[in-house]
């Protein structure tokens, strides 16, 4: 029913390929029969959990609260000691290492960033490198590099204290702290739970772009299935006692939930959820009339009229979109910088994010930007609905194909797992749990 090694032929393939440019710097994590029992409690918090997290992937742990997802995560860096079972990172047993030393080589990112309020941003990020005994020069360079990576200007933010940052900025610093010593494995515990939806969306996009560059192994706990679908290369859905309900790529989980529990958890609108899988970059963008700040308004107006546009996208001298005024709003001789803030979308944002943004403006569309906020075009409602319909048809076709295959093969296995993996997790057992 599930697979850890073989990737089913779904859309995920192209999604993964995007990032295969750089080398994987992550390490494989293997949990084998991991159990956590708290004294005085009858049921185990985590009951015999076995799974493999492939190197360089983002694996999302989701499940209802109390299902043991956070406990499972914390056992990887031994913040919680397993009662039994083994956890291997890159084939090294974590319990054979000194716990403090282990944690210095495993990044840890927590909700809200959990920055130390009495330390500056730089000191917070430098914690692990300092513990590892790096030289000060190297630490300083690394801090600036990381601040750049998480889109914070080092000169401006290095010396600030956490309370002088917004929630989103604190979370960015939290991510930078987790990445500081360049660990192969990063654990994230509800990393974006404490920020507003727009900031969360940006942070998620950013994490994906960082991941494309770094290819770490990221294990991330969330209660938000949409976040899991958006970020995860694979999603692990857990039931009480951290029993695996399904562990697969998002496309398969959405298209063919392993059981009722997964179907309920993923929710009824799973075709809507597909929106979280598709990126704006997959759509064809419209390119309406653009204007540059300082240009003569009359020229712009005639250009727009010949294009049959009623609104123009105003760009600044560095090709970044600044506004999207209607033609009637163009007053004066030349184009001036719009006063209203333009909410633009990163081209890596999901269609779900795109719909959100469209609903907040009157254009029925949204301006899309690429790297460094460069203007790319405009995505509109029709493009999204067309894409949705296409995806739906594709998913239906896949599901039919899958059902047909299932009848051909061993009925207990929906997707064939690699031989050695099947030994570790007997399938019938899982069927019972489900």
């Amino acid at each position, binding site marked *: 029913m599930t697979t850890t090694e073989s990737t089913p032929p779904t859309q995920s393939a192209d999604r993964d390929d995007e990032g295969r440019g750089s080398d994987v710097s992550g390490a494989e994590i293997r949990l084998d029969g991991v159990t956590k029992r708290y004294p005085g409690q009858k049921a185990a918090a985590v009951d015999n959990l076995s799974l493999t997290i492939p190197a360089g992937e983002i694996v999302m742990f989701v499940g209802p609260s109390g299902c043991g997802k956070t406990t499972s995560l914390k056992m990887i860096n031994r913040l919680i000691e397993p009662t039994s079972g083994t956890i291997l990172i890159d084939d090294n047993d974590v319990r054979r290492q000194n716990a403090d030393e282990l*944690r*210095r080589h495993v990044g840890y990112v927590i909700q809200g960033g959990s920055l130390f309020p009495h330390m500056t941003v730089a000191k917070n990020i430098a914690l692990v490198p300092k513990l590892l005994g790096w030289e000060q020069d190297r630490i300083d360079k690394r801090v600036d590099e990381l601040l750049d990576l998480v889109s914070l200007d080092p000169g401006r933010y290095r010396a600030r204290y956490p309370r002088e940052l917004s929630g989103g900025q604190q979370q960015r610093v939290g991510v930078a702290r987790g990445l500081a010593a360049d660990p192969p494995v990063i654990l994230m515990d509800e990393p974006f739970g404490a920020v507003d939806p727009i900031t969360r969306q940006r942070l998620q996009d950013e994490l994906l772009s960082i991941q494309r560059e770094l290819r770490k192994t990221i294990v991330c706990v969330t209660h938000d299935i949409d976040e899991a679908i958006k970020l995860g290369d694979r999603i692990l859905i857990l039931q009480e006692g951290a029993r695996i309900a399904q562990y697969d790529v998002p496309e398969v989980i959405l298209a063919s939930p392993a059981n009722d529990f997964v179907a309920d958890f993923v929710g009824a609108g799973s075709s809507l959820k597909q929106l979280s899988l598709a990126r704006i970059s997959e759509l064809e963008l419209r390119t309406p009339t653009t204007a540059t700040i300082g240009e003569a308004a009359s020229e712009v107006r005639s250009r727009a009229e010949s294009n049959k546009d009623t609104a123009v996208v105003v760009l600044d001298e560095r090709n970044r979109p600044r506004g999207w005024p209607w033609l009637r709003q163009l007053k004066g001789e030349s184009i001036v910088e719009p006063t209203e803030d333009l909410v633009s979308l990163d081209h890596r944002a999901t269609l779900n994010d795109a719909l959100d943004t469209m609903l907040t403006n009157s254009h029925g569309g949204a301006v899309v930007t690429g790297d460094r906020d460069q203007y790319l075009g405009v995505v509109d409602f029709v493009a999204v609905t067309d894409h949705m319909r296409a995806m739906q048809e594709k998913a239906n076709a896949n599901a039919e194909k899958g059902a047909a295959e299932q009848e051909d093969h061993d009925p207990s296995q929906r997707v064939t797992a690699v031989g050695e993996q099947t030994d570790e997790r007997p399938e019938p057992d899982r069927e019972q749990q489900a």
Partner: protein
Amino acid sequence: MSDTAEGAATATEAPTRQRRRMSTEQAIEIFAIPVIVAVGFALYAWWRNTASLDSVELSSLEWAAVWLALGEHVKLTLVSAVIVVFVGVPLGIMLTRPRFRAAAPAVVGIANAGQAAPAIGLIVLLFIWLSGQGWFLSFSTATGKIPFLPDTVGFSVAVIALSLYAILPVLRNTITGLQGIDPTLVEAGRGVGMSNFAVLRRVELPLAIPVIMAGIRTALVLLVGTAALATFINAGGLGGILTAGITLYRYPVMVAGAVLVALLALLIEWLGRVLELIAKPKGI
């Protein structure tokens, strides 16, 4: 990417950036108290030199005697305060560690009793008991060799009694301060690979400092007032002037003693505030 979305947030947060280390109210206290003490003392000096006092009053309020008593009082207060800090803070830390956490209520209970007991009784009873113990007498001669400290048995006993009396606020605030820290921060510290000790030293203690310092200030205030009782076991201090005024029916002496104790108390309280302000880590 971020700067468009969060530029606005940064702008609104700019005022906190410039937030001063103290509020206006704090600033008034910090600057006004020394002035009040100086004016009060000047008024006392003026009264002492111009009022018509009889020979008993004059000898009780001899400048040399007043300075001596003041010095003894300050020594009693500060030595006890140092002991209170060096016992109370580590004890508080210990009682918040998992291994000893269960003992915290009992220990705080004992400290509570120490404070609830009448200070005068504590001082006198300790004196009666300890001044008969040989080991204590040799201990007190030994500590008497420390420069600036009186070598009387009374002083040693008074310091012990005062420390017992004033340990509660420091102990309790250390525990409260450490318990009040967001557990996710402690976990974050452990999560990035700090040892338990490193988390204590670099995360827990700095964050608990404001609460601990408030406890130390409370202890200082308690100590400076209670040190006036040390005179009953011959340990000196400004209490001597007060009791002299009472036993000799000389109201001016009594009032003078009370005023001096009050001025010193204000000054010590101010010292506590300054320490609090200095010790508070930046950023919180």
